[in-house]
């Protein structure tokens, strides 16, 4: 009893939770991932606004209309905005500092998010032209990680403000 009395009173308890899922992504995301497996990037066009969404979606975010027209997009685009990460998080595998950006692919209206590398982080800027650097095709799976990162193309910057304004002009009134 002496041993027991020496113990500290209970003030907290550990209650682990583990819920397992056989998770399935949707039809739009699956279409995108299956194409990525083949090294292709797909978007879908909204019939009401003409905007091209990447990844494709079954319905338009703005109008809820079904979107059935798929569009193949190039693996290059322009940086809209970005963030430089200097902190490691719980399951983070990337070496810091790293930068990720909102990238508007040529012909697309929505931005995808991906890493920017082969460029010092302080040289990244809105309007910068970038292109994808792919893994070896033998390693391709249904994952955006088939693209290792985007890197600068070296082309002249684009006017990002104009590009974004053109996209916004298409928005459903």
């Amino acid at each position, binding site marked *: 009893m002496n041993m027991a009395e020496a113990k500290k009173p209970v003030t907290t308890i550990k209650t682990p939770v583990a819920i397992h899922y056989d*998770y399935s992504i949707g039809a739009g995301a699956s279409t995108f991932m299956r194409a990525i497996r083949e090294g292709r990037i797909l978007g879908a066009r909204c019939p009401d606004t003409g905007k091209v969404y990447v990844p494709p979606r079954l*319905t338009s975010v703005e109008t809820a209309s079904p979107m059935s027209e798929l569009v193949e997009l190039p693996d290059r685009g322009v940086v809209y905005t970005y963030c430089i990460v200097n902190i490691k998080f719980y399951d983070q595998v990337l070496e810091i500092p790293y930068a990720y950006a909102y990238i508007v692919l040529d012909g697309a209206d929505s931005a995808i998010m991906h890493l920017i590398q082969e460029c010092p982080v302080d040289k990244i800027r809105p309007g910068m032209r970038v292109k994808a650097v792919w893994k070896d095709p033998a390693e391709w799976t249904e994952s955006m990680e088939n693209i290792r990162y985007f890197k600068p193309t070296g082309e002249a910057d684009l006017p990002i403000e104009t590009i974004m304004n053109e996209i916004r002009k298409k*928005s459903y009134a």
Partner: protein
Amino acid sequence: MREVAIIAFGQTPNRRRELHRNEAEMLAPVVAEVLKGVGLSRRDVDFTCSGSSDFLAGFSFSWVTAIDALGAWPPIEESHVEGEAAWALYEAWVKMLCHEEIEVALVYGFGRQSMTSPRDVVTLMNDPYLETPLWPDAISQAALQARALLDAGLCTERDFADIAVRNLRHAESNPLAQLSGRPDPDALLETPTIASPLRKHDCPPITDGACAVLLAAGDRARALCKRPAWIRGLAHRIDVQALGRRDLTRSRSARLAAEAAGAIGTWIDIVEFHAPFTPQDWILQRELEIPEGTVINPSGGIHQGNPMMGAGLVRFGEVAARIIRGEADRGVAHATQGPCLQQNMVGVLEGE
């Protein structure tokens, strides 16, 4: 009090597993269908409200993906309840009572339980200190309630089987039902128990699905719908959760909600119970004093399909749809959440 009615209802077919679409993709055509049915567009909706559970969906903010699928532009007035979507209906109803400018409201719920084991996931609704660490599953908890009924001599396992048989028989006329049929109750009682005295037929199926209901107020409802299902009363109440603190043969909160909604001592054609387990159906009949001759669960209840977090809203939709079609004049809809009928909502719907 302002008059508010359900004017349209839609749902996906109840399926054991939806293999092609995610929650938002399942929901979008249902919403499109209910709007089209009354000649409205997305923009005619003044308020949107939904119910869902992040732990069932497998990620946080799961309802946000639905907003992205429903055409929320220009920005919409919108809210969300964590849990059963019938409570989203309640929020929308309150909103319409409060704000004259809100004439049309959209309410929806959805869930894909097939991705996980729902009877174990809902264990997370229990006391996280005393109960969840033991991981009691939902069927076992319902079985403790069933045993209390048997011990009290109030009903028999045969009564439970008869409730299951009634639900499956009614489901034969429900084209969206996942389960239906005419099993022999004696044969059902020969099957093994899962958690005694409960057997498979006493439990709801695992279902993927989505549903949507449209509400409209006053003359707007009359203009959009020949025979709106007017909400004459709507109320919800909750009980203490711990099973060891409750008289499990009763559901006090169901009774109190029914009284507050004006559902007791009134004639009705139909009632739809959100009773996941057959003994709960029996308890609700008693608490709501359902008169002889009332058709209970004309849709088959949730034993034909249980799109969790939307299944209670479906009950309101099923009663309303029958009133709108002229098949019923006055009905009661019930929704629940929490173990063993802990929290209950009761609504009285009526046609003119």
